[in-house]
């Protein structure tokens, strides 16, 4: 893992890996959405609205995966002081927030024809909305830590601790439909088991793989951006002091 601690080595790898994730990711994700739109039959209970599944579920997974990435990278930053871990955590925040927002918006649109309401304050929806607010807080804190150069490592550590503490919401989201009564359905896919018919499951899995690749490509691109910003700042500071 420490082999990638060298930013130059990481950048060399990111340059070829980023397009390798983004291009197949876009093809797979949008191909799976087209598959879900044109080839999948309507569901017996949900009718045509079942097609929202192919965008709603992958974005929900990635909303939670984004914060899990932040938490793991923050732990690595705090414990092993890996120089790229903090950058990886910060890079995952914006795509994580974007997919959380997409999940909430598409879920609300799906709820209207199936539940008869745009929103209910139940465990699943409320904990997912809290996740979006946690992302906003994390992004604001990380930006403030970067701007305030005088705060240095201490501010970065506060951001990492916030990333770790916020992870407590992830199991709450996951178990919310089991712990509390909800209009939201219980989990359809658990470890090794699925109650979804293959007609819906395959395009869903391909959409999930595609959106995950997009997420990975975006994180790599944002890491490149953050590294370039840090290198520019360091260079300008050195010049100002010379």
């Amino acid at each position, binding site marked *: 893992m420490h082999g990638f601690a060298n930013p130059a080595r990481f950048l060399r790898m990111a340059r070829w890996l980023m397009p390798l994730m*983004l291009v197949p990711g*876009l093809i797979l*994700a*949008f191909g799976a*959405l087209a598959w879900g*739109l044109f080839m999948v039959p309507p569901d017996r209970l949900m*009718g*045509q*609205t079942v*097609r*929202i599944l192919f*965008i*709603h579920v992958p*974005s929900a997974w990635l909303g939670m995966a984004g914060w899990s990435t932040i938490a793991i990278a923050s732990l690595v930053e705090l414990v092993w002081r890996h120089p790229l871990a903090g950058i990886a955590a910060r890079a995952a925040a*914006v*795509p994580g927030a*974007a997919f959380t*927002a*997409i999940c909430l*918006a*598409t879920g609300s*649109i*799906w709820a*209207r*024809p199936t539940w*008869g309401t745009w929103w209910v304050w139940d465990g699943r929806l409320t904990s997912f909305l809290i996740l979006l607010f946690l992302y906003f807080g994390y992004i604001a804190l990380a930006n403030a830590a970067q701007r305030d150069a005088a705060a240095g490592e201490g501010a970065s550590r506060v951001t990492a601790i916030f990333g770790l503490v916020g992870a407590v919401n992830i199991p709450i989201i996951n178990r919310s439909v089991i712990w509390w009564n909800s209009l939201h359905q219980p989990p359809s896919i658990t470890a090794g088991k699925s109650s979804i018919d293959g007609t819906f499951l395959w395009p869903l899995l391909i959409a999930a793989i595609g*959106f995950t690749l*997009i997420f990975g*490509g*975006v994180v790599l*691109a*944002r890491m*490149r*951006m*953050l590294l*370039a*910003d840090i*290198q*520019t700042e360091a*260079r*300008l500071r050195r*010049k100002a002091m010379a």
Partner: protein
Amino acid sequence: MHEKLDQWQFVMAALVIGVVGTLVLVGWTLWAMQRAEKRRDKAKEK
């Protein structure tokens, strides 16, 4: 009271939000990355 809704309108709205949101995220990220790397290269030249 039974409400008759056109389900396709909801499907299309959700897909447009998902597709446009994803494309904006990817496009904005690539633009910001290129801008930051150009700025770094300019700082190197100075």
